[in-house]
């Protein structure tokens, strides 16, 4: 089975936060962006927006520090790193350990939650109109960048085209 990952293009993101909204609706049933599994970091004064989604790292610190193995890897589901809500004790060690500031503490459920690719159909990808987030095969993540670089190279070699 091909492994897929979330790919974020922060140049496209407009900071509309629709992804946060649909994420919270899908996971919690409430339209509350503070309970979403991804966050948009904003620098409004200069118009920079950075969607922070889980990278499901190969060497995941959150998995290493979890005292109950609630945070674990599922190789059969896109090799995702996910948190079992029934095992999580809410110690928040994973939040401190993650360099991407990803797992979030759900104040209502009193446990840590994180992106789980919405069981194979990420809602953020589905609802992002400008396609700032996409769900791609691992080997295709750099295709867009390679294409851009190739176009630049062609333009520099042959400016007339």
């Amino acid at each position, binding site marked *: 089975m091909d492994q897929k990952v979330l790919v974020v293009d922060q140049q496209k993101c407009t900071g509309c936060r629709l992804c946060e909204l649909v994420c919270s609706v899908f996971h919690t049933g409430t339209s509350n962006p503070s309970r979403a599994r991804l966050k948009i970091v904003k620098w409004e004064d200069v118009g920079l927006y950075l969607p922070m989604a889980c990278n499901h790292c190969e060497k995941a610190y959150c998995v290493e*520090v979890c*005292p109950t193995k609630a945070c674990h890897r599922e190789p059969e589901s896109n090799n995702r790193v996910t948190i079992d809500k029934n*095992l999580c004790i809410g110690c928040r060690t994973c939040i401190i350990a993650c360099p991407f500031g990803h797992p979030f503490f759900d104040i209502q459920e009193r446990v840590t939650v994180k992106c789980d690719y919405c069981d194979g159909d990420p809602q953020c990808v589905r609802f992002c109109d400008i396609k700032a987030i996409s769900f791609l095969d691992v080997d295709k993540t750099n295709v867009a960048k390679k294409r851009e670089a190739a176009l630049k190279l062609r333009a520099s070699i042959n400016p007339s085209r």
Partner: protein
Amino acid sequence: MATENIPPMRNIRHLRPQKEWKEIIAIYLYLAGMGAGSFFIGTLISWLGVKLDPPFLSSLHLFGYTLNLSKVPIFWGPIMVAIGAPFLILDLGIKWRFMYACLNPRTSWVARGFIILSIFIVLGLVLLIKSVLPFGWLHSESTLWRIPEVIALVFALGTALYTGILLKATKSVPLWNTHLLPILFLVSALSTGSMSIILSTLGTGVFSHDAGALKVLMGAEQVLVVIEGIVLYLFLSRRYRAAEQGKDSVRLLLFGEMKMIFWGGVVFLGFIFPVVLEYIASFFPGNFVLIFAAGIFLLCGGFFLRVGILHAGIKDQIPMHRLMEIQYNMMAGRKVNPRITVHESQSH
């Protein structure tokens, strides 16, 4: 036309330390460290056969039995750890699930900590109760008790070190990710622990005469404070050079939001006041108020040390953030430049 100044992204007033672990964890780290340090020093005193003067209450009559309280001041550490451990549970999202961590000791340092603390508390309390109870069948002077004492001593050392290892294990905070942190917490645990023993034996007349044992303990405590100061200096200077976020953390601690905690709480209360007060007290052998004040200040300093280090923990920067920082500064620069141009044209 005036343009608003955009604060640079990496500005000391805009540093973002971690907000997950707060005072509750600091109380836990402090009580666990102090209790373990106190027990460690107390056991060494007991092994050396040093006779300390008894506390206020050397014995207690209860239900027809006479409880021996003479060794309580040197063995009361496990009580402190037992009071501190629930603070970790209090900080959990779902409190009753702490059992899950106990059942998975091999997973992480949080889980191992539960085990280390549990063994220390149980063994320490058994030894404390043994020293108190008057029953002959306990053979409290038997050399066989050395076995649980040695095990408890090892776990006391483990508890004091563990408080630092817990922070070190979360690798993404450069300030904490160093071997010097467990050593710093160990030395701090020993200095606060020895001071807690000195405090618990105060008022018993030990300072009214030439009490040799207490003088040695006071001397050892002062040496520990000096070593703690050196380790703290090494810790901060190494972290300052270790990584950009380590530098930010040290700046936050020394000159940022945490400067009152650091200079007031750690440096003055924890180091300068106790040393000065103890020096003054050496000229007044009968006056234990000064020693008492020095002790309280030192214990407060130990607590503020944990608070400061916890609150100054800034996470490592990921390449994506660095990229955004460069972009931000470029765009902020672009916005600021027109203002300068306008200003220059007006001056002409």
